[in-house]
């Protein structure tokens, strides 16, 4: 028998029943919920007179709508009545169905993809789903994790299972070592630049190679988080000592004899050496430089030493048209150097880059400097209350404030601008988030995806700079 990939192993260990028509029921170990994609699911459950199959598998929090100021005041701090109602609806649903929830103002609350790993609620070998496409984040732990729609949220609540079809296997090997000052964010943006926004459609991508193994767990989360931006619902990294070290001692992690058994089982969560992948991609990690997106989807990206492309040099008419439209929307000129792009706002946060290492990386760059006068706003939004507490213990909040950054309460914030944090029309933003779609951060807003270090340096300089020269 041929060897199995990590994805094959995770699939096999969660298969409840294989149906004749090719679909299957797979078991879900962890279901994370937030306020935006769950209300209609709870409503459906109630209307059908059903109850959650296994309460303890569910964990809920509020993140998309929450304001990033004055959170300790609770729900009343939300000025927008529709946002407030959505948050209150999750509170009511969790109370009515007895689902564990970290409510607004709870220090354990935060972005759903930050708190899962932080709490040990995400464990190697689990299946993890959430009504949110960035659920791929949790694959960094060797867990099978992906986003689902609201109908599926209801299905998981009711059955603890998903109707699924097995994906194909892809391996993206990033060679190493990575260059000095190159981060996980640069790695994943470079991968998306190479394979495209639909390059991973239909696949579970396992990220491998020295360029991935050398990353911390938080770095691996950043990489897996954006698998969906390459079209893949699932991103995975094999379990190693770093994984196990990160998981140990967290509130939801196994303890005592359970821990020893779990660790023994988790060591098998790697692809066998003779496993076959349906598609293999190799990315030369040694040549990746800090990345900056210039367009309106994440594959429209280049290195800091690069230029905005010239549509006239593109033969394919659809590709050329898309590039022309992107340049028009972004207000950029063909062949313009990336370093010449000036920023109006800077956002450091989101489920991609709001963990403690991200904040340390940015603080190191801004320490003792000042945000450029031309920058209207530079904000740091920690991924959770606990990340915020840790950063404040380390004095990072002081470094940011003294440099002219706003230090906010946790949430999704300006990544998708469902709360009050947003771009004005035409404004350019250096953002550590994951999507640069038209209007994503506010109607008419222009997003440039970068790493925390690059965003921090751009805030100080007022335009993009090669942060490696500052380190």
């Amino acid at each position: 028998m041929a060897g199995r990939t990590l994805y094959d192993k995770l699939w096999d260990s969660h298969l409840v029943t294989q149906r004749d028509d090719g679909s299957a029921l797979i078991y879900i170990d962890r279901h994370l919920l937030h306020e935006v994609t769950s209300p209609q699911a709870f409503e459906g459950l109630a209307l059908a007179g059903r109850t959650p199959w296994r309460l303890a598998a569910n964990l809920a929090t509020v993140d998309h709508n929450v304001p990033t100021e004055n959170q300790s005041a609770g729900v009343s701090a939300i000025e927008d009545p529709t946002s407030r109602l959505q948050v209150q609806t999750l509170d009511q649903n969790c109370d009515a169905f007895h689902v564990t929830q970290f409510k607004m103002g709870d220090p354990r609350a935060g972005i759903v993809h930050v708190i899962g790993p932080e709490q040990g609620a995400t464990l190697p070998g689990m299946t993890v789903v959430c009504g949110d496409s960035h659920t791929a984040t949790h694959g960094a732990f060797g867990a099978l994790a992906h986003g689902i729609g609201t109908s599926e949220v209801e299905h998981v609540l009711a059955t603890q299972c998903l109707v699924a079809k097995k994906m194909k296997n892809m391996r993206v090997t990033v060679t190493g070592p990575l260059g000095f000052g190159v981060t996980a964010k640069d790695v994943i943006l470079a991968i998306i630049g190479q394979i495209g926004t639909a390059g991973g459609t239909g696949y579970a991508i396992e990220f491998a190679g020295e360029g991935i193994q050398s990353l911390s767990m938080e770095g691996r989360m950043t990489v897996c988080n954006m698998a969906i931006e390459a079209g893949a619902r699932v991103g995975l990294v094999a379990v190693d000592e770093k994984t196990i070290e990160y998981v140990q001692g967290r509130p939801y992690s196994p303890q005592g004899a359970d821990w020893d058994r779990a660790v023994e089982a988790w060591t098998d969560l790697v692809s066998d050496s003779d496993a076959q992948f349906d598609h293999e991609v190799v990315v030369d990690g040694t040549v990746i430089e800090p990345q900056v997106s210039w367009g309106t989807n994440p594959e429209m990206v280049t290195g800091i030493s690069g230029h905005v492309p010239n549509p006239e040099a593109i033969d394919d008419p659809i590709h050329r048209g898309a590039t022309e439209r992107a340049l028009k929307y972004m207000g950029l000129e063909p062949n313009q150097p990336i370093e010449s792009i000036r920023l109006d706002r800077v956002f450091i946060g989101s489920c991609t880059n709001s963990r403690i290492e991200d904040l340390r990386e940015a603080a190191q760059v801004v320490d003792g400097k000042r945000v450029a006068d031309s920058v209207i706003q530079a904000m740091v939004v920690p991924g959770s209350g606990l990340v915020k507490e840790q950063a404040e213990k380390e004095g990072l909040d002081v470094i940011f404030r003294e440099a002219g950054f706003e230090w906010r309460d946790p949430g999704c914030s300006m990544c998708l601008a469902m709360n009050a944090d947003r771009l004005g029309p035409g404004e350019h933003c250096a953002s550590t988030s994951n999507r640069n779609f038209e209007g994503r951060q506010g109607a008419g807003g222009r997003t440039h995806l970068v790493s925390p270090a690059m965003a921090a340096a751009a805030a100080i300089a007022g335009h993009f700079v090669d942060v490696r020269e500052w380190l």
Partner: protein
Amino acid sequence: MMQQFVKETGLVVPLDRANVDTDQIIPKQYLKSIKRTGFGVNLFDDWRYLDPGEPGMDHTKRRLNPDFVLNDSRFSGASILLARDNFGCGSSREHAPWAILEYGFKAVIAPSYADIFFNNSFKNGLLPVILAENEVDTLFALATGETPVEITVDLQSQTVTGPEGFSASFDIDPFRKTCLLEGLDEIGLSLKDADSIKAYETKRAVDAPWLFRD
């Protein structure tokens, strides 16, 4: 409960863009709703209207973008949306198929879709048809002519037919096809396997007890 889809004949609207993302299909400010309905008037909001939209606005008083294809009166009442590669990329919001359906579309035709959008569509009775690149090109040529064209999407025979002898067939998973044709309740179907789910849990609790310390 899933809506049924059997066969649809209607006008086709050509949306000639690749990588149409869910932030375009239904912008985030409308996701604050706790209902499944009310999204149709905000489908493609940023492209469709010239003024920025917010929940609760009276859309009949908003300025329409005359250059956007959905506002072309010739396509009024259309029920089939024609698009390019990677339609529906981005977030997992099921509000995207809800908005498309509520606007009046019953089917989308494109060469490829993002996985989550594709999956969400079936759960709601919106049929995402995959045709080959050259077949989609032909449909674009037909649909962008002087007069709009009607085409027929037939799920039973898995075919798309149209004027000038256009005929193409498409693949679909048997499970999804059955669910759509019969409008089945997927949760109800899965609960028929409740014994299998319980048996799985019993076995898994022995193999991986740390996952079941409820």
